[in-house]
């Protein structure tokens, strides 16, 4: 990172986001400790369900405040059987994927330009910081007004919410490309395209995929925020309808489906990391820093 104050700032908030996601990240170790990690996971799940029941029995909580796990499960099976859950999930998933693709493409494009040009960075940094400060909940209604109540407005909310982390990680990633390797490419007469494809992309990939991990989960939130504002399909809509009808079990079904969707996307990014970042020994390295200096 160069001595400009803004990127430091950007990075700071990014780091805090990363910290928020830290627990989630450690649940997806890239090394092959999978099998053994399953047992504690199952135990944690069982404990969660037990505490859930305990809360209901000991606290005397009525089902319309907090339904019991088996009621949620039963509601899940019904929503699955009548096809509504799959239909709404598919709508939300489309919004998430399209939003992620759009937001990531824009973020990588801008991020690359920003990383390559200090002038551009100084010029755009205030806008970039502002884009992060805007509460998505506040502008989602505007997007619905501007782009209509259909798919487009939700995709844009998702795109906006994933833009910042991926942008920052693109900048950090491209800036982390070692100068010596750049010199090597120059001395070998590499073209711009070759430098990008053979050096910058692979070198920035670990940090970039870190941004995607965060972006994938944020995109799910974005879709729901967009659907809350105005929609007639999607899990966020299902959530609103369920709340409106006091069907709290269905609220939980929708929430859990959203969690499952976010975790699956997160897992997919983790898989992509395993597939492309085998050259890094530890997942730990891939998260925050890229250390090109091999041991000598």
């Amino acid at each position, binding site marked *: 990172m160069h001595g400009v104050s803004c990127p430091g700032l950007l990075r700071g908030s990014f780091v805090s986001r990363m910290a928020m996601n830290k627990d989630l990240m450690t649940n997806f170790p890239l090394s092959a400790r999978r099998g053994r990690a399953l047992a504690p996971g199952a135990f944690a799940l069982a404990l969660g369900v037990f505490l859930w029941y305990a809360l209901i029995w000991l606290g005397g909580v009525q089902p319309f405040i907090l339904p019991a796990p088996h009621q949620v499960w039963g509601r899940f099976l019904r929503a699955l059987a009548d096809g509504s859950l799959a239909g709404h999930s598919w709508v939300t998933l489309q919004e998430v994927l399209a939003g992620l693709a759009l937001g990531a493409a824009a973020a990588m494009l801008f991020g690359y330009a920003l990383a390559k040009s200090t002038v551009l960075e100084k010029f755009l940094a205030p806008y970039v910081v502002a884009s992060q400060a805007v509460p998505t909940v506040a502008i989602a209604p505007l997007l619905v007004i501007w782009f209509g109540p259909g798919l487009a407005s939700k995709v844009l909310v998702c795109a906006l919410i994933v833009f910042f982390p991926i942008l920052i990680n693109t900048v950090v990633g491209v800036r982390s490309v070692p100068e*010596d390797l750049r010199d090597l490419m120059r001395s070998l007469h590499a073209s711009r395209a070759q430098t990008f494809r053979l050096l910058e992309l692979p070198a920035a990939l670990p940090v970039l995929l870190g941004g995607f991990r965060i972006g994938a989960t944020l995109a799910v939130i974005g879709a729901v925020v967009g659907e809350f504002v105005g929609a007639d399909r999607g899990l966020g809509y299902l959530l609103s309808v369920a709340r409106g009808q006091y069907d709290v079990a269905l609220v939980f079904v929708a929430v859990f489906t959203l969690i499952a969707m976010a975790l699956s996307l997160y897992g997919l990014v983790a898989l992509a990391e395993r597939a492309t970042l085998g050259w*890094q020994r530890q997942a730990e390295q891939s998260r925050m820093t890229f250390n090109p200096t091999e041991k*000598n």
Partner: protein
Amino acid sequence: MTGKALLEVIRLSTTFRNGNGGLHVLDGLDFSVAEYQFVALLGPSGSGKSTLLRTLAGLLPPSRGRVVFKGQRVDGPPRGVGYVFQNANLMPWRTVEENITLPLELAGAANGAAAAKSREMVELVGLQGFEEALPRDLSGGMAQRVAIARALAHDPDLLLMDEPFGALDAITRERMGLELLRIWEARRKTVLMVTHDIAEALMLADRALVFSERPARVSMELTVDLPRPRLDELRYTPEFAALSRRLRDAIR
């Protein structure tokens, strides 16, 4: 001086801009390197040896003077130069073979040709069996061999080496020196190598240039007229000791 000059450095000066009037690094350097010569560059740390190498490679424009390579003024990286960096500077995501063939890939060589060249280079630097290894699994010495193989892969006329063994331990360093000697004798390239190690310079070079403190000038030039092939025993001869003393005094 034997043969015609492959590389000429003419009144070369470099000043880096900084807060107070600029950092004067190179001060009117003048020397030339003949074809197939092995030239060692010695001098105190911070005397601008790396700056000179980067300038010769066309990565850094000089403030004044010029560099002429193969009769052409250097203006940007010239073709036909291989560069070996201080650390191996390998791409950690590419295998040994892929790192070696990078120059060929960039030049658009056919896969078959690249594979053949890679096999040849792997053999030359003695890394058979490690073609598919990733840099993280290599020792420092092995990584530097890969770097040398990469620098030689596109058959450059001039090899610029910036303290290639500086980060290695003493034993590995000596072994790599001999290795380089063997490679150089097999390939007969023109080499310009920056080093801190007097013994290394004497073992390898035909000529040694000693730089002064910054701003650097050539404070001494020494012809290393030790017989070749040079074997390890050479280190213990009086001739070697005498040259070694002269270089040491010049650096001080």
